[in-house]
């Protein structure tokens, strides 16, 4: 077996770059698709997700708190998934996307309630996806009037169902105005990259088969790995160009904030782009011609757009769809981009979404290499 040669990778890389430059249509598509999609998806599609994960930070353990927790779950919008013991712990969960809400019951809540002081409950919501949070927040605002009717007995009876005995204070975090484009535009980066990166590599290899140049490529002393890296590398560069287009548009046209670091974003991008390119490469080892490659790309693209949390809030999807969604790189990348841009999260916070991307990438690359034809058989 020959070793891997940098020179041969460079040969394929240079060839691919030249071909890419000559192929005006593809080049136009690379720049055109992001712009068209940005315009098209400027509007969000609303939905009404239920059972959103909620962290509870209870600093006052009493009968009231227990009723409250039950009532909150009964609205159908909240599912208590974590009990935390400090504000910091809750913040972290919220920032990593582990929960969508953080509910804090302040110390002395029940005492204040009993005194008729109208104490406050604090709800912090991850509003980076505003449609996901909106209905849940509406539901919780309805709570106070009736929730404690069973508990307010005896001396406390006068408090029952007069006016609400306590307040709910809602903090929308990360996207206080609930602007939809804040959520959609970063998500679009993942969608656009999925579509163009997969398609382009799928076509780049199938084209060789269709034009008969594959026979020559196979007759030369090239390793599958060298072909793959040489073919994928130019498109990583292209992926970065696309992302630049979208981010500039996001910042200028939609005023989307960029709270995190560009470095973190580019690291995540590199993994995500490579993952998509290996999907494209794998498709090209299966497809017989460019049309089939195109069809298979869309087969991959559809769930990536529908089940990744881009179109519909992820937590609003049925469980089976979430399982599929969790496998798709776009799902994780979507959370990463939103985390970095809207929440200012760092890579460490987002590690939970980075490792699935890495595993996906390595697994698919291995599959592509195994499937890559070494002969014409």
């Amino acid at each position, binding site marked *: 077996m020959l070793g891997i040669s940098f020179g041969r990778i460079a040969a394929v890389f240079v060839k691919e770059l030249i*071909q890419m430059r000559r192929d005006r249509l593809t080049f136009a598509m690379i720049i055109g698709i992001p712009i068209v999609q940005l315009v098209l998806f400027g509007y969000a599609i609303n939905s009404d997700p239920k059972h959103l994960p909620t962290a509870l930070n209870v600093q006052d353990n009493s009968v009231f708190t227990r009723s409250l927790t039950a009532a909150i779950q009964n609205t159908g919008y909240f599912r208590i998934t974590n009990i935390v013991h400090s504000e910091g712990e809750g913040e972290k969960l919220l920032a990593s996307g582990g929960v969508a809400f953080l509910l804090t019951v302040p110390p002395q809540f029940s005492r204040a309630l009993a005194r008729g002081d109208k104490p406050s409950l604090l709800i912090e919501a991850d509003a980076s996806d505003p449609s996901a949070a909106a209905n849940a927040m509406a539901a919780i605002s309805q709570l106070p009037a009736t929730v404690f009717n069973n508990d307010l007995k005896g001396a406390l009876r006068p408090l029952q169902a007069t006016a609400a005995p306590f307040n709910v204070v809602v903090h929308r975090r990360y996207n206080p105005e609930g602007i939809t484009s804040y959520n959609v535009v970063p998500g679009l980066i993942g969608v656009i990259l999925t579509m163009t990166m997969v398609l382009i590599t799928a076509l780049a290899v199938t084209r060789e088969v269709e034009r008969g140049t594959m026979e020559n490529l196979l007759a030369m002393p090239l390793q599958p790995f060298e072909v793959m890296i040489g073919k994928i590398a130019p498109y990583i560069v292209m992926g970065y160009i696309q992302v630049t287009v979208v981010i500039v548009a996001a910042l200028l046209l939609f005023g989307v904030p960029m709270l995190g670091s560009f470095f973190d974003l580019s690291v995540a991008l590199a993994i995500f782009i490579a993952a998509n390119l290996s999907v494209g490469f794998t498709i090209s080892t299966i497809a017989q011609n460019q049309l089939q490659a195109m069809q298979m790309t869309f087969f991959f693209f559809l769930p990536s757009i529908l089940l990744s949390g881009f179109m519909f809030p992820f937590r609003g999807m049925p469980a089976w769809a979430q399982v599929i969604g969790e496998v798709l790189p776009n799902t994780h990348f979507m959370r990463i981009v939103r985390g970095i841009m809207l929440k200012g999260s760092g890579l460490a916070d987002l590690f939970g979404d980075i490792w699935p991307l890495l595993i996906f990438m390595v697994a698919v690359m291995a599959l592509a290499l195994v499937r890559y034809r070494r*002969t014409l*058989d």
Partner: protein
Amino acid sequence: MSGGLAIDVSGLTKKFGSRTVVKDFSIQVPKGQVWGFLGPNGSGKTTTIRMLCGLLVPDSGRGKCLGYDIRTESAAIKRNVGYMTQRFSFYEDLSIRENLDFVARIYEMKDRGEAVDKAIAQLGLTKRQGQLAGQLSGGWKQRLALAACILHRPQLLLLDEPTAGVDPQARREFWEEIHMLAAQGLTVLVSTHYMDEAERCDRIVYLAYGTILARGTVDEVIANSKLYTWIVTGGEVRDLARELHDKPGIEQVSVFGITLHISGTDDAKLEKAIEPYRNRPGFTWTKSHPSLEDVFIHLMGPFREQVTG
């Protein structure tokens, strides 16, 4: 190395689905020789060449190319073999120079720029080196492909119909170059449908429907054919051909311009068949050797009904 053999294979068999396309193929090609590979369309020439350079895995049979096993050492074979595909398989959207440069990079040539310059100059394309390969005429594409596959100075050339569509002048230059390279020790296996090219080879191998039907020097192949041929010249040979073609003892009648070749395997029967026509005025009859083409057409005869494609 297996003696002085560049190609040493035996029993190669290849099936596509249930159809056997190459059957029990064995050849031993000494280094520095030029071998011609002939046979009708679909006879398995391309398939055989692909097995030799590791592009197809034979279903059975074994052998070596340049001392490397064709099954297990195809990487080494690929480094030392120049394979020219039947269909143009360089990049039409790359220029002449870029294509050659790509090849030179793949083979990690140290003197890349120089080698490419030289190849372009030899082709006489220095002025057009920036032109896209896709814009070249068919013959020029062939010449570019040939230049590309000898660029890395291989020890063995496998050429699949390299001169299809190439003009006579370029064809002659091509063969001069082939013989020059062979004199330097390069071994060449070249498939062709041209008889004059077959005659330029040290040995020929004739394949029909996957089986080798004849092999050896041109003279040996003609002698072994056991074919007897009469050549008729003068007058309206076409009319004569029409009259003769279904007579018993005459197996083959073909017109070459103003001459007629009449062949058969049974000398006596053949003479008897032509007897009544011998005295026609205006024709000259000579008993001669069959041409290579006569032999090939004769060899194909029993198979002609077989469907191929």
